[in-house]
């Protein structure tokens, strides 16, 4: 009596297993190349700042960060200074660099605001009071902003093509690892410090972590 059922078993045992594993490995390797190598390059576009700027030089010539990044009388933080503030010194060219000439010609004379690309810009749903951190908690600017204050050049601005925000928010490292506090500016990084420093964990809004403390 023939055993029709045996036939498939025979065929199966004959099938070479090599290519299947090979394909698995090819797919595996290709996705690793894609995910680690190509994806980050595709995700971020490289943009130059409209005008070259040296924080180091300005830090030397002025009284430090708060000369330009100051608190207004009502306690709000001015952030990136407006042209008006720059013009307090730069109404006419100071020095003879090309960047200075460009700044004066393209922005100061026509009274146009410089469209600076802001590395630390957070989405509008994030409420971050500088006063609470810098004045009340006496934190240094560098704790969150790193060494930008000592830089001679503005680095390339890497803009996330999906969100439109800077790469500096997620951090240079694609899996979110960091060495310094200033390497990342995501919510986890805020809460890490808040937990460590035992900042108020309750809030009037929820009695717990308080979403609405920071997300308005």
């Amino acid at each position, binding site marked *: 009596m023939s055993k029709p059922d045996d036939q498939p078993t025979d065929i199966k045992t004959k099938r070479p297993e090599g290519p299947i594993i090979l394909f698995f490995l090819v797919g595996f390797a290709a996705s690793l190349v894609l*995910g680690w190598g190509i994806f980050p390059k595709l995700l971020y576009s490289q943009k130059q700042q409209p005008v070259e700027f040296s924080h180091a030089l300005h830090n030397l010539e002025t009284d430090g960060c708060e000369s330009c990044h100051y608190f207004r009388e009502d306690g709000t933080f001015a952030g990136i200074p407006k042209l008006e503030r720059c013009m307090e010194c730069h109404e006419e060219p100071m020095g003879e660099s090309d960047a200075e000439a460009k700044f004066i010609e393209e922005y100061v004379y026509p009274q146009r605001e410089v469209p600076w690309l802001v590395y630390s810009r957070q989405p509008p749903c994030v409420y971050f009071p500088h006063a609470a951190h810098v004045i009340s908690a006496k934190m240094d600017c560098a704790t969150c902003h790193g060494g930008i204050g000592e830089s001679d050049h503005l680095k390339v601005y890497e803009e996330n093509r999906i969100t439109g925000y800077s790469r500096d928010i997620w951090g240079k490292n694609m899996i979110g690892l960091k060495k310094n506090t200033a390497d990342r500016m995501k919510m986890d990084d805020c809460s890490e410090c808040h937990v460590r420093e035992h900042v108020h964990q309750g809030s009037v809004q929820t009695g717990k972590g308080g979403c609405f403390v920071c997300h308005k």
Partner: protein
Amino acid sequence: MKIGRRCFLSFVIGGAAGTALTPLPWKLTDDLSIWSQNWPWTPVPEKGERSYSDTVCTLCRGGCGISVRKVDRRAVKIEGVKGHPVNDGGVCILGLSGLQLLYGPNRIKTPLKRKGKRGQGRWEAISWEDALAEIAEKLKGIREENKAHTVGCILGKRYGVTAALFERWMKAYGSANLMVEPSVEDSLEMALEAMHGVKASVGFDMENANYILSFGSGFIEGWGSPVRAFKANSIWKDNGVKTIQVEPRLSNTAAKADQWVPVKAGTESALAMGMAHVIIKESLYNPAFVDNYTSGFHGWKQRVLKDYTPEKIAEITGLDASVIKKLAREFAGASHPLAICGRGQGDTPVALNEAMAVHALNALVGNINQPGGVWAVPKPSYSDWPEVELDEIAETGLQRERIDGAGSAKFPMAASLLNRFAAAVAADGEALQALFISGANPVYSLQGAKVFQAALDKIPLVVSFSSYMDETAMQADLILPNHVYLERYEDVPVTAGLTAPMIGLARPVVWPLYDTRHTGDVIISLAREIGGPVAAAFSWDSFEACLEETLDDKWEVLNEQGFWTDTGFEPPAWKDAFETASGKFEFGSEAMDLSPGYSALTAEGDRGTYPLVLIPYDSMRLANGYISDPPFVVKTVEETVLLGKSVLIEINPKTAKEFGLAEGKSAKLTTPQGEARVKVHLYEGIMPGVIALPRGLGHTAKDRFMAGKGVNFNELIGPVEDASSGLDVAWGIRANLAKA
């Protein structure tokens, strides 16, 4: 090697496993969530430095002080200025929405020259220099032909430095044809001139009155200076002041009044005369004033006693004679009664004898220049400009009679009669060769709008200074856009019923957004371009320099607090108040053949064809002049006024039944002037036989938020001329309403 299905699946599984070990899925998830929480069309509040800039609202005649909240250079909110003498922190719905007039889509961004036919809306942008040169060349040509008088000018506001610059320009050029959009202030000031012999604004001490008799004035509909009127209305309610509203329709003001007195449309002044009859007959008048400080009382008294008996008035007004008597006794019995006229928002004048009749009521009870009464308030003074030196062409031009007949032997008291413009231009096609229109939208807002537009067709050059693409700008050949009110300096003399002379100073709160120029500057430039004596009349470098020089000693205080007012102003006592020939208050000026009275002003149209009477009504939610509703305000219009794109016409259920009309049904409205599609709204608050439409709808130009909604009342009515003042005093028109 054979690659089968399994190999493919294996590849995919390998890929999936590998992908899970890369940042790709985790990073994409995070990014997509950020992206989806920050749609670019979600409005986000501006970040930046917060500040406030104070200025004056010029969207109506009210002159309220406003404070504009800004974030950096962007204006984000308008509030009322606390402590301001007009509005003390209050602001109306239109004033609140003013930012949409600044940032809205209807702005004209650069000088424009017409490309297609008039009204087609095809334009090309041109430079200011080219536009001015083109206009100047045409104007020079007209002048050389000795036709300077054929240049006309229509303004939205009569007073202020910009208006004075236009007037000076016209004078130096050689034309007297400067006209201004009318309002009830024209009638009130004429009444004051006839009865007091003074040229002054009419002030109402509303806050201190304790009995209010309103002949149709909509105190909460935007009459006078609206926010001040709201506040006065609140004071009356708080203090139990009795308010009487006389009008054929239950307006919001009537609904809030203590008593609504529905009279037949257009017979308000008949009631005033009936009340005068009762007051005189029963000797309820104030003898201290009437016996000592008035003239012509005796003669007038005889006429009043003979012609205006309560029974006769009852027949005219449809009221009961006892109501008339009761109102008269109450009015005369109050210590500070105040009678006010000007229908709705007061945008249309009333007949001179009507204004005089209401003023005579105030005079009978002696509340002239008294607390809670009517005051003659002098216009705020400005420093004088040097006299214009006229050349021969200008002299000849100025000797020609005005096309509107204002100031002629027939209408000696009128300064401007825009209602007569269309007929004059229609009669003589060459009457005007060029026309300037600034701060006004007569193609929309003048009663008889269609006829006015037809008249414009006969004028070869029409220049608009409008900031917005409105109906009149659409008919222009060239548009020289002005800055909008939040971008410019402007002095604002407030005449709308205030009890002290006042000037507000509008100051720029934001930089001009577009390539617009201040009309004052444009007038100066235009004079320079023309050269000769016209240029010589303008010595100022800019409007701002001119404004500063003209306001002189007031400039500093205006800049500091935003307004100047004569705080110590008290109206003169009776013995010094009147400058008539007799030196007394005049009840009947025989020289001018004028006296307070009632003459039936019949609505246009015959009863057979048009069995109904159509009247307009005003609403705070519908701006109806040069400024029209910004989108926010359109949204507040009730569904009983505007339903979708259809306007609802108010009709009494009884009348509707006679005409076979039901709520919400479409109907065809016809008047001798035009026709329109409307929807029916049954309303118990309107007298049978009368139908009402709101003013402020039916725009054809303007933005998509405003255009194509409802019908323009002004296209359905024509002007009716007051015999003694020449003003348009049409209060309604006969109409028919049929099922459609």
